[in-house]
C-alpha cells in the first residue's frame, strides 16, 4: 500500500508537471518520437506491402525479412547504431523503424493478397488498369488488416521509445532510467504507468481510426465479398 501512496504523491507533486523534466514535456517527447517512428515505418512498409501484395512478387522475401527483423533485439540494434552513428535521435528512430516495419509490412502484404481472386478478376474484367485495381479495390479491402498491423506496431513503438532515454534524448524512459540510477522505485513505477497509459490511449486511437477509415461494408465482421 505504501508504494501506491508514494506513487500518488509522486504524481501529485506540482514540480512533476512543469519544466523540461516534467511529465508534459517528457510525454511530448515520447509521443513525438513514437509518431515519427511509426510514420516513417508506415511510409516504408505500406507502399512496399502494397507492391509485393499486388504483384505477388517478393512476397516470400519480405515475409522472411520481416520475420528476421522481428527476432532482432531492439536494444542491441540501438547500441549497434549508436556505435556506428553516434548518440541522438537517429539511432532511436532507426531502432523504432526496425521494430515497426515488420508487422505493418506483413499485414499490408497479406491484406492485399487476401482480396478474393474473384473480385480482382471482376475489377480487371470491368476495365480497371493495374493501379486502379490496387487503389480502388485492393487497398480499401486491405485497410482493416493494415490498421491492425499499424496498431501492433504502434503499441510496440510506444513501449520501446523508452530507449530514447539511454541515448540522452528524453522521453518517458528518463523516469525509468533515472529511477534505476537513483534506486528510486517510485519514479520508475511512475514512468512505467505513464508508458502503459500511452499504450492504452494508442489502442483507443486505433479503434477510432478503424471507424473512420474502414468502409462500413467491410465492418461487422463481414469478410471481403462473401
Amino acid at each position, binding site marked *: 500500500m505504501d508504494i501506491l501512496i508514494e506513487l500518488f504523491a509522486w504524481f501529485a507533486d506540482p514540480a512533476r508537471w512543469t519544466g523540461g523534466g516534467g511529465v508534459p514535456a517528457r510525454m511530448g517527447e515520447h509521443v513525438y518520437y513514437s509518431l515519427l517512428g511509426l510514420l516513417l515505418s508506415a511510409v516504408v512498409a505500406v507502399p512496399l506491402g502494397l507492391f509485393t501484395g499486388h504483384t505477388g512478387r517478393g512476397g516470400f522475401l519480405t515475409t522472411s525479412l520481416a520475420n528476421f527483423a522481428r527476432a532482432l533485439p531492439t536494444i542491441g540494434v540501438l547500441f549497434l547504431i549508436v556505435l556506428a552513428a553516434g548518440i541522438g535521435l537517429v539511432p532511436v528512430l532507426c531502432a523504432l523503424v526496425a521494430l515497426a516495419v515488420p508487422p505493418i509490412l506483413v499485414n499490408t502484404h497479406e491484406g492485399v493478397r487476401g482480396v478474393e481472386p474473384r473480385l480482382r478478376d471482376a475489377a480487371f474484367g470491368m476495365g480497371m488498369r493495374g493501379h*486502379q485495381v490496387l487503389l480502388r479495390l485492393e487497398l480499401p479491402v486491405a485497410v482493416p488488416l493494415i490498421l491492425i498491423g499499424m496498431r501492433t506496431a504502434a503499441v510496440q513503438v510506444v513501449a520501446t521509445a523508452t530507449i530514447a532515454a539511454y541515448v540522452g534524448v528524453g522521453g518517458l524512459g528518463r523516469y525509468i532510467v533515472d529511477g534505476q540510477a537513483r534506486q528510486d522505485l517510485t519514479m520508475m513505477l511512475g514512468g512505467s504507468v505513464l508508458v502503459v497509459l500511452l499504450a492504452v490511449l494508442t489502442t483507443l486511437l486505433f479503434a477510432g481510426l478503424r471507424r473512420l477509415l474502414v*468502409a462500413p461494408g467491410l465492418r461487422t465482421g463481414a469478410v471481403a465479398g462473401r
Partner: protein
Amino acid sequence: MITFEGAAKLYPDGTVAVDALDLTVETGQTTVFVGPSGSGKTTSLRMINRMVEPTGGAVLIDGQDVRLRDPAALRRSIGYVIQQAGLFPHRTVRDNIATVPLLLGWGRARARARAAELMELVGLEPSQARRYPHQLSGGQQQRVGVARALAADPPILLMDEPFSAVDPVVRASLQDELLRLQEELHKTVVFVTHDIDEAVRLGDRIAVFRPGGRLAQYDSPERLLAAPRDAFVESFVGYDRGVRRLSFFPARELSLREDVVFGDDTAAGAAAASMRGEPWALVVTGDHVPLGWAGAGQLARVPADTALGSLDLAPYGHTFAVDTDSLRAALDAAVLSPAGRAVGVDAAGRVVGVVSQEDLGTALWSVTE
C-alpha cells in the same frame, strides 16, 4: 457480331482449354455456351474481352481483331457479369453500379444518376442504393451485378454462369428479368451455363461444347432438341428432350372442351346426363373459378337433385394459361391432375375449358410429325 476464327487456348501445362473454335455470335441476340465442366466455355467467353489471350486463331468484334484494342478500353465497352456477382464489398450498391462510368471519367453525380436508372431497370428498390453487398440476398446481388455490367450501356454483355448460385425460384425470376431486359435492350449477349434448361430458355442460339474444348453443335434451341447431331449432344440435352421440346409449341392450339364444365349449382343428374360417357366433370363457380373434379361414378351414386358444389370434389391440381403457356405446361397439368385432364384458364384465372387425354395425345402426335 463476334467471330471466333479458329480460336484456341493451350495452357503451358498442356491442357487444351479451347481447340480451334469457329463460331459467329449474331448482334442483338442471346447466344448461350453450354457444356459439361471443363469444356472451355469460360475460356472462350473470356477471349472476347481479352481476359484470356488465344494461343491460336483470333476473336473479332465487328471484323476487328480484339488484340488491336487496348485491353482496359475494350473491357469498358463490354459488360461482364460473373458467378456470384463479384461485387466490391467496400462500395455501396450504387457505387458498385457506377464503377465503369467512373472509370470512363463521368462525373460522380452523373454516374450516380445513371446507377439509379439501372437499379430501376433491373428491379431494385431505390432504398437499396446505399446498402452494402453483404446486406443483400444472393438474387439481389446478381441484379446489382447485371446493373453494373449495363451501366455504361455497352453493346455486348458477357455473362458467366450468373445465376448458378441462387435457388431455382430466384433463378427463374432472374431469367424472366433477363428476357424482359433483352426484349427492351437488344444487346449482344453471350451467356455461359451448364444447365441445358437455362440455355433453351434464354438462347436464340446455343453452342454445345464438348470436353476438350470443341464445339459439338451450334443451333437454335428448337433444332438442338429436335435433331441433336450425335450421341454426346443427345445425352447432354437429356433423354427427356422430347418433352422439353414441347415448350416451343403454344398451348393455344389445343382444342378445349367446354361440355364437361359445370356450374356449382348444376344438379348432379343433369350433369351426368350431358356428359356422354366422359368419366370426369369439372365444377366451377358462377365466375368460372375452378373448384374440382366430380367423377361419373360419384354423380350416379348421389341423389339426382344434389347441387355439384356440395359434393366432395377431387382437387383440380394446377392449371395452364391457354394464351401464354406451352404444350409442355398443358401436359404437365394433365399428368398432375387426378382426373388426368388439364384445366385451361385465361389471364384472369377463369376456366376456358378442359383438354382431354385424347386431344392432348393428338396435339403431341402432330408435334412429332
